């Protein structure tokens, strides 16, 4: 927007009188000055700390956090990692009850892991009870508990770190920091951005089916046929979008300049250090107390 237009808008921004409609009802649309407009800010993360770090760091940090945990399977390392994570998230501005509320599906998954390992674990020690497929031995309970807590310790930080992650910011980071191919990153982003459009398309497809008197039968069949229609429509849109992107020079071999700058700061490096420290502190604690158990070793 040019400067002159902006200035003109500032002079006229008090109130815009909308002409009267047929019923003679006058609508007055009050327009507030641009700088006093309150728009709900979409939080980048529920945690003030996580919100300040680069989205790329969030993904890398989550990987650093969870990968070492795959190598250990014992109560001490898994539960201490989980406790440290809860405390650090609390310091980072996400209270434990908020964490639990936002990660409720994790706890269902952890329960599933607990039951499956409890009933079908590798036999260790005396067999306590068995029926059909089910074999419960002395080692089953601690193994199941360790697995369930480990599932939570791996998933909880991952889920919290992903909350509010902005795909556009992540794409900028992937291109500028990790030097991924901009063709693939921004092409993928273009697809992701069509997501909201697809929601409208879904509604429109449903309405147009209705207006033709279709879709009063089986709800599942209707959903399936509508889903197929949506898939075809989205491919058609994507093809058109690709042509438009190419017409604007996207995908050529010419060097690309970046409109938005994405870079790493000291806070990102602090975050990496924390993400590495958590699993290694947990593993060290387990080794020191003599409870450490390598995950892929026989019971």
């Amino acid at each position: 927007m040019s400067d002159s237009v902006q200035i003109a808008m500032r002079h006229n921004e008090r109130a815009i009188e909308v002409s009267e409609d047929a019923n003679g009802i006058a609508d007055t649309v009050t327009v507030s000055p641009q700088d006093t407009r309150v728009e709900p800010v979409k939080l980048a993360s529920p945690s003030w700390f996580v919100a300040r770090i680069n989205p790329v760091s969030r993904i890398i940090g989550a990987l650093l956090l969870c990968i070492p945990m795959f190598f250990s399977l014992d109560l001490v390392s898994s539960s201490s990692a989980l406790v440290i994570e809860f405390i650090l998230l609390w310091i980072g501005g996400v209270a434990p009850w908020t964490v639990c509320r936002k990660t409720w599906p994790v706890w269902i998954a952890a329960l599933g892991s607990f039951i499956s390992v409890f009933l079908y674990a590798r036999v260790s020690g005396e067999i306590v009870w068995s029926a059909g497929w089910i074999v419960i031995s002395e080692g089953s309970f601690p193994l199941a508990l360790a697995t369930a807590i480990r599932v939570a310790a791996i998933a909880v930080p991952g889920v919290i770190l992903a909350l509010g992650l902005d795909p556009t910011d992540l794409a900028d980071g992937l291109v500028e920091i990790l030097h991924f191919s901009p063709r693939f990153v921004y092409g993928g982003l273009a697809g992701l951005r069509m997501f909201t459009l697809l929601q409208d398309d879904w509604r429109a497809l449903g309405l147009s089916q209705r207006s033709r008197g279709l879709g009063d039968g089986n709800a599942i069949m209707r959903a399936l046929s509508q889903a197929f229609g949506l898939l075809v429509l989205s491919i058609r849109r994507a093809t058109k979008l690709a042509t438009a992107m190419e017409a604007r020079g996207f995908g050529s071999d010419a060097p690309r300049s970046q409109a938005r700058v994405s870079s790493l700061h000291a806070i990102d490096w602090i975050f990496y250090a924390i993400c590495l420290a958590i699993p290694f502190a947990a593993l060290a604690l387990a080794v020191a107390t003599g409870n450490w158990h390598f995950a892929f070793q026989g019971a």
Partner: protein
Amino acid sequence: MTEAVAKANYKWRVVDIVVAAIIAVASGVIFWGWDIVCAVPLTLFESVTPGFEGLLNGFWLFAGPLAAIIVRKPGAALFAETLAAFLELTLGNQWGVGGSLIVGIIQGLGAEIAFAVFAYKKWNIGTTLLSGALAGVGCWVYYWATNPGWNFLRVGWYLVGSIISGLIIAGIVVWFLSRAIAATGVLDRFESGRAQARV
């Protein structure tokens, strides 16, 4: 089907990228929906059966094979499965970065191998089935790593279930879905859409 042998072109065009991305997005939404729908049945399967919950995996496996069979480029399966997993992750689910993104990448690699071993020249129902099955194997690898306490019976059943599920949903269904999409004429900019017209 006699395949008119065109010279294999491995270079991605913009349209390949964007269409693979949109297939991934559509699949990612289904992944996420399936996360929610199957949370309870999954727990039930885990407790009542010795590993049959692998049968539920298919709905997380199909993005890679579907994108690959449509755009027919090296890396399409990995790209689509990863992007779909990423969308699933940002929509929020029970597994976080590990169980969404890492498993997605492993499944994508599995799906990719099926086409890579034929040097990206065979795009038929056979490679699609193989791709779905290998995506299932990829899923199994991750879940075994997550639950190393499972006994061999359970690990075996999980693998079998995961492969069957991959074969059906990410193999047969994906193949016929791709043919149905081609029949609508929307794939006219792709080799996969033109092969249909020649038959």
